[in-house]
């Protein structure tokens, strides 16, 4: 495969006819799509939606939670069978999750529907889930409606990777009201060699679809996530999320959640969340999308989680505390099973209690403004403005085109990615306070003052530890959070 498939991209709302043309093809990818052929199917979907109460809508829950100053919690689910998935969800229903985050399985994410179907049958036979998510296309609208109707929460999906167009058609037709749409993040995280332009094009399709429902009066919410791995720089995450926001707004999406995977340094995480919010608002307004409603969300640390249950739940609660102190609208939580198995319903029930308690106690508390926070935020803003400007420049003002060129030129880059077309020149380490810093920004256009600031922070740790930053640090930090306390004590000299 090559990095570009040669698809002509443009960051502007698709013609409805162009969309419909693509749609016929998408719906024929798998039998469950065929039922949705024709404009009528969309109308039927819209009608189903309109019969739903307000609290099935993530967008409306956002507003309400803000009024109530309540922080929302979102557990996750996804097993091969609809029954398994529903059983998992029932475990937490009385704890009132605001949304259910239904992850699709990897086959579905790669549009390998036959394999997913196969695994569903094997799972049914063996009474076991052979899939790491819920195969939306395999179960079709009827399965997805059953999932939707088993809960008072707003049901949504995360199912990109490469092609999530069909699963989104099914989800929306089934009354699901929100989902994560990604392209840039997905390549960096999940792909080996899928073309960038094709991925962005697929994303535009979904955004256009969501916008169409919204135009019909159904307030579909799109989550613009940058839950990139926990070892990535916060500035990079903000850049990625911001690009997703702008691509999405261009397709007519009106309700967007900003979402940052936290790094577990309180000040830096809060700074990133604040910076993303300010930048998103500023760029949206500047580009004529003043009517887009945005909310700040977090995603729990996407790095190594410890095996020991006590350590695990401690880390969970810390993630909830940081998210709450950042004043976010809500958070995507993890379960105590994170490091050992596919999360269970019981695990998420416990996680709902853990995070629910933290959020309740921290309600109303915020990390106060301070010079440290202001510096951190300014550094992130400075970095993101520079990178986004470069991308705009590379695309002659078009973000989608610029993003493709960004991949080519190393302007978009990070470490630990399976994506072969990424330069992989960036190196990130933690400083003495646990904040993430560029040891090497590679070819990314990080402004000099930012690079120097990061370098200084790293030097302080070097001085403190008497070692030099390098690959050793990176390797050690890959298992920093998951390190067993017992081992650590055993190494103490007393």
């Amino acid at each position, binding site marked *: 495969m090559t990095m570009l498939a040669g698809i002509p991209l443009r960051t502007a709302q698709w013609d409805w006819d162009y969309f419909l043309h693509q749609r016929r093809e998408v719906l024929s990818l798998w039998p469950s799509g065929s039922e949705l052929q024709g404009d009528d199917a969309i109308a039927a979907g819209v009608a189903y939606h309109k019969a739903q109460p307000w609290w099935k809508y993530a967008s409306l829950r956002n507003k309400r939670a803000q009024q109530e100053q309540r922080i929302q919690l979102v557990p996750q689910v996804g097993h091969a069978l609809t029954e398994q998935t529903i059983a998992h969800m029932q475990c937490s229903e009385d704890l009132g999750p605001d949304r259910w985050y239904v992850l699709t399985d990897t086959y579905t*994410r790669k549009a390998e529907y036959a394999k997913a179907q196969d695994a569903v049958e094997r799972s049914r036979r063996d009474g076991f*889930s052979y899939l790491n998510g819920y195969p939306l296309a395999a179960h079709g609208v009827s399965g997805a409606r059953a999932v939707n109707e088993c809960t008072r929460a707003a049901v949504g999906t995360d199912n990109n990777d490469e092609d999530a167009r069909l699963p989104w058609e099914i989800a929306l037709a089934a009354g699901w009201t929100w989902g994560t749409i990604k392209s840039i993040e997905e390549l960096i995280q999940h*792909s*080996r060699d899928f073309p960038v332009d094709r991925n962005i094009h697929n994303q535009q399709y979904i955004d256009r679809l969501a916008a169409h429902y919204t135009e019909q009066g159904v307030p579909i919410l799109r989550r613009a996530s940058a839950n990139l791995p926990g070892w990535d720089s916060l500035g990079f995450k903000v850049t990625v999320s911001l690009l997703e926001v702008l691509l999405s707004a261009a397709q007519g999406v009106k309700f967007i959640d900003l979402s940052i995977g936290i790094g577990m340094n309180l000040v830096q995480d809060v700074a990133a969340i604040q910076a993303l919010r300010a930048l998103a608002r500023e760029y949206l307004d500047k580009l004529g999308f003043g009517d887009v409603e945005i909310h700040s969300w977090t995603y729990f640390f996407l790095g190594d989680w410890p095996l020991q249950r006590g350590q695990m739940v401690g880390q969970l609660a810390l993630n909830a505390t940081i998210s709450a102190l950042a004043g976010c609208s809500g958070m995507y939580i993890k379960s105590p099973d994170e490091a050992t*198995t596919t999360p269970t319903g019981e695990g998420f029930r416990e996680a709902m209690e853990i995070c629910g308690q933290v959020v309740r106690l921290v309600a109303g508390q915020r990390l106060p403004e301070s010079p440290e926070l202001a510096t951190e935020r300014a550094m992130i803003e400075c970095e993101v403005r520079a990178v986004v400007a470069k991308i705009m420049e590379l695309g002659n003002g078009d973000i989608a085109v610029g993003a493709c060129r960004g991949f080519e030129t190393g302007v978009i880059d990070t470490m*630990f990615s*399976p994506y072969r077309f990424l330069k992989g020149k960036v190196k990130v380490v933690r400083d003495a306070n646990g904040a993430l810093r560029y040891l090497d920004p590679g070819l990314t256009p990080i402004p000099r003052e930012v690079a120097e600031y990061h370098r200084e922070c790293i030097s302080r740790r070097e001085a403190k530890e008497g070692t030099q930053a390098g690959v050793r640090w990176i390797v050690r930090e890959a298992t920093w959070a998951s390190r067993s306390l017992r081992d650590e004590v055993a190494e103490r000299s007393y």
Partner: protein
Amino acid sequence: MDRSSRRQPVVVLGTIGHDAHIVGSSVLRIALEEAGFKVVFLGAVVPAEEFIDAARESAADAILVSSLYGMARIDCSDFGAKCEEAGLGHVKKYLGGILVTDPEAWDQTEQIFRAQGFDRVYPPQTKTDVAIADLKRDLGLD
């Protein structure tokens, strides 16, 4: 054969199937290289066949497969048989990562993957030292 004349042991390493988790294998790669192994690193999202081809081409002593995303049961089915077919029956085959999906006893998980042809199967967060020590023992390098 004395130590010095012995050729550098070769290991093929990567993350199997559609699995994108590359951090664990990257860490393992560095540790293996530091321990004196030649590592043919395939990265992540690597089909089973690619492991086998690489092992054949490099005359590898061992194949180290990583899987974290929960679909190892499918991705690794008949891995041992495929190796056998390719004339790689003698090559050591290790599997690690996060192999449990539904909570189950580790013995059971281990048995399932041993039946798929792996010589050693590792529980989550196995330290790189452990795997290296096993490799040295299994390859008679100590």
